[in-house]
């Protein structure tokens, strides 16, 4: 009996070689590896699995007419060689090597195959790059993110235990909409089905993930069409009750202005102000806002709300008194 891999590669090469669309029956007779004495129903089940596996490998197999004939879309299947500059090649290798060595990166196997496909050479020189995207239990976070990302892409509900910031653990059933990485942690955004609200969960606090295994090819839910996970990334001073939200303005001195875009993390809006910049951004925690400005200073100041300047002066005076 031939190896199933042999049959799949034969099918791929056969479709790539075919000059006209072919029927399933023709494929069964021409491609070595399909059992000769197999009944039609069993063959069709095997053929369906094979098409799915080849599509997962990057082949674009199309049904071209009502007779159900198949054809490989060669343009959509074969790529041209990439012409990368030495700097670009080095950057891809460094990013790839770093992620492959990081247990918190959720897709190492797919990345390895992608790098193999796009590689213009197989240079074995060691690449000195490493990453630790998530700093707490990176392997566990990577595995949980891989499961939740798969559930999200297939529209399947997930259940898990979640320990909140007060240490209380409770079960949750969630429709996973998206995932993001921020400040050394992965986060899940999804609709909590019991509360009927979209919430953000810290992946490091998630345990015992189970994805609905029933009808794996049928989605349990549809993600809102306007969902964008980037809207859920928050800065430290943006956590707190929605009722506490206020408009903050921070100014960047000319010497600190170059860091504004980095610190903004996509939040709020920046505009020129003389030779410096101002950043208008929603905030919920005055204390955290002042902390953010001071930690990232010098040259960053909260200019609104005005009342915070009084708090800032009093706080700094206390620091001077304590350390004087």
């Amino acid at each position, binding site marked *: 009996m031939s190896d199933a891999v042999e049959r799949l590669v034969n099918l791929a090469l056969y479709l790539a070689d075919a000059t006209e669309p072919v029927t399933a029956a023709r494929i069964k007779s021409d491609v070595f590896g399909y059992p000769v004495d197999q009944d039609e129903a069993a063959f069709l089940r095997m053929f369906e699995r094979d098409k799915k596996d080849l599509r997962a490998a990057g082949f674009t197999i199309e049904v071209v007419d009502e007779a159900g004939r198949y054809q490989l879309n060669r343009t959509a*299947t074969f790529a041209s060689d990439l012409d990368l500059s030495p700097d670009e090649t*080095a950057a*891809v290798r460094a990013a790839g090597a770093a992620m492959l060595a990081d247990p918190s990166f959720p*897709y190492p196997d797919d990345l390895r195959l992608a790098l193999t496909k796009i590689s213009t050479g197989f240079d074995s020189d060691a690449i*000195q790059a490493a990453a630790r995207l998530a700093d707490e239990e990176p392997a566990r976070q990577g595995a949980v993110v891989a499961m939740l990302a798969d559930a999200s892409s297939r529209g399947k509900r997930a259940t898990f235990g979640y320990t909140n910031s007060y240490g209380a653990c409770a079960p949750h059933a969630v429709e996973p909409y998206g995932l993001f990485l921020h400040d050394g942690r992965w986060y899940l955004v999804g609709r909590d089905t019991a509360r009927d609200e979209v919430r953000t969960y810290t992946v490091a606090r998630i345990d015992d993930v189970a994805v609905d295994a029933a009808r794996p090819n049928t989605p349990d839910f549809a993600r809102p069409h306007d969902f964008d996970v980037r809207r859920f990334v928050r800065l430290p001073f943006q956590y707190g009750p929605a009722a506490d939200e206020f408009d903050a303005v921070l100014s960047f001195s000319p*010497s600190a202005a170059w*860091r504004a875009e980095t610190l903004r993390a996509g939040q709020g809006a920046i505009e020129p102000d003389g030779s410096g910049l101002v950043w208008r951004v929603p905030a919920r925690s005055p204390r955290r806002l002042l902390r953010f400005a001071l930690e990232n200073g010098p040259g960053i100041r909260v200019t609104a709300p005005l009342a915070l300047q009084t708090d800032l002066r009093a706080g700094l005076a206390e620091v001077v008194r304590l350390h004087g």
Partner: protein
Amino acid sequence: MAKSPSTADRTRRLVALLGHLSPESPLALADLAARMGTSPAELAHDLSVLSLCGVAPYSPEQMVDVFVEDGVVEVYSPLPAVSGPIRLSPAEAAALAAALAAAGFTAGDPLSSRLLAASSAAFDADELERTLRSSIATHNSSFFETLAAATHERECVALSYQRDGAQVATERVIEPLQLFAERGAWYVSGWCRLAEELRTFRIDRIHSATPTGEHFAADAHPVSTGAAPVAFSLVGLPMARLRFAPGETFIEREWPGGRVAESADDGGCIAEVPIGGVEWIARRVAARLGSVEALSPAEVRDAVAAVAGAELSGT
């Protein structure tokens, strides 16, 4: 015990190789296996299966003419029906996009766009952008390219760099050795010719990075290639003692490597925190606006007072 790869996994592995097998370029089996995360023996077995594949009528010239001899993968004639690398599947494209995003190359970056143009039509880059954000880097991606190439080529780089808490940038030449991502940022470590010691530089604090054309010896500055590299080693650093007032919780993630040394009945505590940098720790203490006090060493206490005084004079 490692899980055996499925038929689909083995097929994907061989398919990934198809576009690169040609009579002109023999490949080292060990390199290929390392690249693909498998053992040479397992890959050799799969390549032996590949040598049995072909297209009808399966005559010798219609077979994949691949052999492994003395650790080298040799191909003796062009592969039947294959006209280039197979495009990335949606899962592969998503993984590559996530890796590139983590290194600062977002969806709109020219390098990402060109690489993802090699993906299959089923890959939806916009959908991925809206559902997965793996970017931690806010640096200029061209600096990452320059530093990656310089690290690989062992070429010196002139940096304009503004360190944490500094008002202005300083110019220096470094011999770059490693790139790291840790705690939400990328760093390059290397020999700093200005400081004459190994230093780590946060890439989003670099103003400019220019290769100088000068190369340094491979063994000039040995670096660790351990399995869990870190940008900063906290081992052996002097410790600061900090008093946390009641209501100001000590959170280890905010003070890397720190620990609670004494807990007080009133809910406060005294913590010991490695001094990664005096300016760094002084800013963090000052930013707590009196709810954290640096008890020792005096150098840190003085720095906290100086930071608070300077900020106060500017209000």
